[in-house]
């Protein structure tokens, strides 16, 4: 059941509805159906590629830095809880510190105004107001919980988008509020260029180039979309070894039992 070219193209339009600021997303979607209105996305090598892939957890953690300092200003990730961050190699204490640095709504305070409290490991990542649709006229940025899985083109496309900004070629002017990006549907996207060299400081001393940030944050998004991918592959290898061994034994047993039947 490979995703057909038709479907990917159709799904691209769906994403375009989310990304382009052309107003009604329903109106934009069918118009571009069936054509690939952006540069072909080059394939990247990822640690999580293929049936035996694993996550480069150092890259996932750097990616979280990028996500926390840049992406989370606009994008939500509502299905991920702070406690889930232990899965990318953080200790419970580190997770607690990260959670406590976020303020989340806590009902109405005694002064009658919305109250805030420090988040705990059991709280979900807070969704910023723009992603909740609270800012009139703004394009709603998609939730990133499963983005690497549902986004047409997957991690390759996300990396390409993050590094695909540049001055438009002569004669091309993106519509107001849109930015030229050769990998976006229609080569224009509502998201302003999010990354730049040294936009973040990596605690591990890795040089924060735009490409490095894009690579790390894409790895983080892929991890967030499938946090148990490495577990799944590891368990799979063990189960397979067991089953193949059992199969060989049963094959020999079957041959022996049936040897005097014919």
């Amino acid at each position: 059941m490979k995703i057909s070219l038709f479907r990917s193209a159709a799904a691209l339009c769906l994403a375009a509805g989310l990304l382009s600021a052309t107003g009604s997303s329903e109106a934009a979607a069918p118009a571009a159906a069936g054509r690939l209105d952006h540069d072909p996305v080059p394939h990247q090598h990822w640690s999580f590629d293929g049936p035996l892939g694993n996550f480069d957890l150092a890259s996932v953690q750097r990616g979280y830095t990028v996500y926390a300092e840049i992406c989370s200003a606009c994008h939500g990730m509502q299905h991920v809880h702070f406690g889930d961050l232990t899965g990318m190699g953080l200790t419970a204490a580190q997770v607690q510190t990260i959670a406590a640095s976020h303020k989340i709504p806590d009902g109405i305070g005694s002064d009658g105004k919305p109250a805030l409290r420090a988040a705990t490991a059991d709280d979900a990542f807070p969704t910023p107001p723009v992603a909740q649709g609270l800012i009139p006229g703004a394009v709603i940025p998609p939730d990133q919980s499963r983005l690497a899985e549902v986004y047409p083109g997957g991690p390759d496309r996300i990396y390409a988008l993050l590094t695909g900004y540049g001055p438009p070629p002569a004669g091309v002017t993106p519509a107001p509020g849109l930015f030229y990006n050769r990998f976006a549907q229609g080569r224009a996207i509502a998201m302003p260029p999010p990354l730049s060299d040294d936009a973040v400081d990596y605690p591990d001393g890795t040089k924060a180039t735009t490409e490095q940030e894009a690579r790390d944050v894409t790895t983080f998004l892929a991890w967030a979309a499938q946090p148990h991918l490495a577990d799944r592959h590891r368990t799979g290898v063990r189960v397979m070894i067991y089953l193949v061994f059992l199969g060989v034994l049963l094959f020999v047993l079957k041959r022996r039992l049936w040897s005097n039947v014919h």
Partner: protein
Amino acid sequence: MAGSPSRHETGPGVTGEDIPQSSRTTGFTGWLDARLPVISAFRNEYVSFPMPRSLNALWTVGAMLTVVLVLMLLSGLALAMNYTPTAAGAFASVEAIERRLPAGWLLRSMHMTGASLFLAALYVHLFRGLYYGSYKAPREVLWLVGVALLAMVMVTAFAGYVLPWGQMSYWGADVAGKAIGAVPGVGPFMERLFLGGDQPGDTTLHHLFVLHFTLAFGVLGVVGIHVAALHVAGPGNPTGVPAKVPEQTLPFHPYFTVKDGLGLVVFAILFAGVMFFLPGLITEPENYRPANPLHTPADIEPEWYFLPFYGILQSIPSKFGGLLASVGAILVLFITPWLDTSPIRSARNRPVYRAGMVALVIAFILLGFAGKHHVEGVWLYVGQIATLYYYLHFLVLMPLVSRREKAALAHASALRTGEEA
């Protein structure tokens, strides 16, 4: 046991003799068996149950289906304990299962892979039955129960697919509601009853959750009837000639225990391969987007196992006609034993029917592709021709071939009596 094939003492299905025979057993087992003959039933219906020795690998699929059904019930129960059947909470509860429930990701992939491979094995089982004439006397009831199971499993699978409340879940429920609404007269009323409103919502989810849960255990019960019916006449076999004399049979244990066991392990390897390494084969990325009533996906498509019927649905230009044709494709299986009345059982000995069976399998697969391509362009004609053949196979080819074969057999036996005279 590993020595010469041990001959069973009792014939198949001679349950009347069980109690006097088992009363020979002494102690607690004898006491229990005289009151509830579980031990003699275990011996007669499993250990020494006579199986035709000519059975091929296709006869191990039944065991696979039984094991997957148990796996589905167990994983399903664990999932249901952590699932919220409301439009607002369903998607988030499934995300929480996958992300935070211990081994939740494993439970859910098991349940999803199980659903896909259950249907796959069921289709193999069905076409095996059609090919080897498993529906013929004295196994008509066994067949009817089996087709009823197919229908129940399909409804269960559909209901289950809606539960995660992703985009495909929502819009699948929407399409199903509209299909019900296409029934003349009662349609609109039935659609509202099914959806519990104008569009899929909380009530729909409640309906389908209860339906999914109830039917799953219903399937388990009907499988019991299916197996009981199987044990009356015993399994058919690829030769089509009943294995009546003891020399043509083997006791189930150990011969078929080990054979079914080997089949199960091969199936488990396939299962684990899909579940652990290639889950993309059976998952639909679009369904990891939460249901959005305001945003129709550009390409609404059911799971692969419904595609042949989706192909029939779309190949017929009328909405209600398409619904009739795709439901009829299942209904026609119910009357198969009375459409194919030829005394020759196995397609091995029926060249015309055999060619027809090959064509039927090809038509079924082509219908799947036509469904996948929304019968666009050339796929419309492929879908229509395949639909036509599907029905011709059952309604014309089966009775026609039966008549010819019966005539040929009568002719041959007349010749033989002539020679003898």
